[in-house]
């Protein structure tokens, strides 16, 4: 095997693969990536047996072939190289790297041992705008709970419907939902019938957003009962650039729509930045259950923040905001509130509260596509 390509490209993709390729003591082949020189292309594969990625880049191949190299060493080494074309040359059990004045060789493993990445042979797919989808996904992915006791909610729920794609995640204390509407964002479904919904593992959701995140193009989704496959195309030519596969979490996602409150007793509209500042100041004084109390009085359009801690002291501050509805006092875990606020992109935030310890809702002003539901802390 012998091939030449731009170092820049190689570095970019290796960064993305680092989180996927896992450290396995029992099975060293899982620490490696598979490098394959094809005609005009270089192909790199990585997998942890849950997620798999195949990536292609244009390369000048002099001799076709494949090899498996330890990812960590390979990628650390590339960081020291000058930004010039790099030559990869497989000789016996070594991969020779040549780039400017640098010449080194890395010991390789037999490529036959590298896991095969299962590709879905399905002509039906859904096409989506990459950037919108990945941004939406990252807005909910962190909420999912990693608990293995409830596998259904350990992942991110995706529902592909006729007029929208919905994504949701919950850890049973809070829930985030993002909707991508069809007409504005231009997604098209070819050969898909009715609704499809599935649960992807949290790690896969994170990596999916990370791997495709920056692309402006569209990407294609296809499904099989156990698997999801996403593929994108190269800008320069019609060849595939990236294929991403992940297992799905089996089970039925809870009927989460029922969690989203249909009504509220009090509504606040506040500038997001100030809201976050007040919350963070109050959080410094919060006790061990992270409790921050919020008091709303619609009459004088004030939102008060209160927290106290036996060891540290107590804190009180108030924020001018538009408020309507009944006066209310309610406590939250400040981490949960801050996590929700961080995903809100608008300048002003709507915060809807309920009496009797009902769930509260955070949403951006003027953007119906995102909402974040959070349960309060029991009043004491």
């Amino acid at each position, binding site marked *: 095997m012998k091939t030449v390509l731009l170092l820049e490209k190689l570095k970019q993709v290796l960064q993305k693969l680092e989180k996927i390729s896992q450290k396995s003591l*029992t*099975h060293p082949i*899982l620490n490696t990536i598979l490098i394959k020189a094809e005609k005009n292309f270089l192909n790199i594969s990585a997998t942890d047996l849950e997620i798999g990625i195949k990536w292609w880049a244009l390369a000048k191949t002099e001799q076709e072939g494949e090899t498996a190299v330890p990812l960590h060493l390979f990628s650390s080494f590339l960081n020291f190289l000058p930004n010039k074309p790099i030559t990869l040359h497989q000789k016996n059990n070594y991969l020779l790297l040549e780039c400017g004045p640098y010449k080194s060789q890395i010991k390789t493993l037999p490529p036959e041992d590298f896991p095969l990445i299962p590709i879905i042979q399905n002509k039906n797919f859904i096409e989506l705008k990459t950037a919108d989808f990945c941004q939406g996904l990252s807005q909910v992915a962190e909420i999912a709970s990693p608990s293995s*006791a409830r596998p259904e909610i350990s992942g991110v729920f995706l529902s592909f419907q006729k007029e929208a794609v919905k994504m949701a995640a919950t850890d049973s204390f809070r829930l985030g939902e993002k909707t991508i509407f069809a007409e504005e964002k231009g997604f098209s479904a070819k050969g898909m019938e009715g609704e499809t919904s599935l649960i992807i593992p949290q790690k896969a959701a994170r990596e999916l957003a990370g791997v495709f995140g920056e692309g402006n193009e569209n990407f294609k989704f296809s499904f099989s009962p156990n698997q999801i496959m996403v593929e994108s195309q190269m800008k320069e030519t019609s060849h595939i650039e990236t294929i991403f596969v992940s297992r799905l979490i089996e089970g*039925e996602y*809870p009927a989460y729509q029922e*969690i989203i409150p249909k009504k509220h007793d009090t509504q606040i509209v506040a500038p997001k930045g100030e809201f976050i500042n007040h919350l963070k100041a109050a959080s410094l004084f919060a006790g061990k259950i992270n409790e921050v109390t919020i008091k709303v009085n619609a009459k004088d359009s004030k939102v008060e923040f209160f927290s106290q801690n036996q060891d540290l002291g107590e804190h009180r501050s108030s924020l001018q905001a538009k408020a309507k509805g009944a006066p209310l006092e309610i406590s939250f875990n400040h981490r949960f509130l801050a996590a929700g606020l961080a995903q809100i992109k608008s300048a002003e935030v709507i915060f809807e509260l309920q009496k009797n310890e009902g769930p509260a809702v955070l949403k951006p002003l003027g953007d119906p596509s995102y909402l974040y539901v959070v*349960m309060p802390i*029991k009043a004491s």
Partner: protein
Amino acid sequence: MTGEELWQAVLAQIQLSISPANFATWFKNTGIASVKGGEVYVSVPNSFTKEWLEKKYDKAILKILHSLDDAIKEVKYIITRPSALKIDKRKGEQSWLAQDQLEFDELKVDRETNLNPRYTFENFVVGPFNELPHAASLAVSKNPGFVYNPLFIYGGVGLGKTHLLQAVGNEVVKNVSSKKVKYVSAEKFISGVISSIKNQKMEAFKTQYHQVDVLVLDDVQFLAGKEKTQEEFFHIFNSLYEKNRQIVISSDRSPKTIPALAERLRSRFEGGMLADISSPDFETRVAILKAKAAERQLVLVDEIFEYIASNIQKNIREMEGALNRLVAYQKLQNQPPDAQVAKRLLKNVVLAPTRIATPNKIISAVANFYDLKEKDLVEASRKREIVWPRQIAMFLLRNELKCSFPFIGRRFNGKDHTTAIYAYEKIVREYQQNEKLGEEIELIKRLVYET
């Protein structure tokens, strides 16, 4: 040779020819799912393993299988979910109970059955007031469909109807997991009917109910006046009943007193077992409080239990609310409240303003119940449809508020106190003989105290 033995033989041979790392990676959680004719179906945990076995080891596996049994001509690989997942499902839920951070209740509910696992027979306190419904529910859950069908449980708010209903469902699921149980509140049922009419999916809606073995319908009184829903429910009811499927229903009043309920439904409800939950007596209330306190790990002196039990009489949910206040106190102060503190904490709950009846409230509730104007009730009229409610109003004024008879007479347009005495005694007499009247009065009282 069974599938398991076959696969053990394959594993034993194949481990000799490949590296231990490969063996551990690719043959973990594999097995033979089924053998049909010449085809063996091998179950694998994920698509990576499937791909690998198909492409790399298929020949070796087939060769070994063929040597064990020459009928085997082909091996196929299917992805199955590891069965271990379901077992530890319940574990995680328990540990959250003690925390203050509230979570979404909806997530605990099983999606198939709509049942909340929190409600079981084990944590249901039985007293004289609910002995019959409890026994009937227990019998039904042991032998669904063949005793007491339908089972109709009725009683006031917060007395444990939903708990019993869900317990029946949970018990059936626990005992016979193949039985399909469906719990649905009348409200949900109604919105289901409406949306399936809108989306023209009535058939799908019906089949979903026709397939269940135990149908539990909560708060059936909300079907009142919803004719189309009643009709759909009637058909579902009939088809289930004919197939000996169990139906359990709850309501806040007996079928006779549910207004605007189709006669054919009413008679069907009455055709099964009717069991009512009345208000718990003092001793049971104390027992319930103790059980609930133990659940919350709250240690209290008996005096407090007795104080709560003697002050909150009609509603178990309210008693729970009172306990919750004490739990909050205990958490904050790290010590259980003593009797003095408890009484202070519970002042608001016990003396809630909504619980006080006034003469005006009683009169307007009676007028409301019999669909009259308040003015008619107090004016001098001898029409039969007015005289009867008026006498009931007088009875309630005397019975609930201990008003003097002259006061009652004056309240009704200056009637003589003897009229009030006559009315009171008449109703007392009737009350003892006429069961239906008792129920009417119970409903009026609820109107007075709960709104």
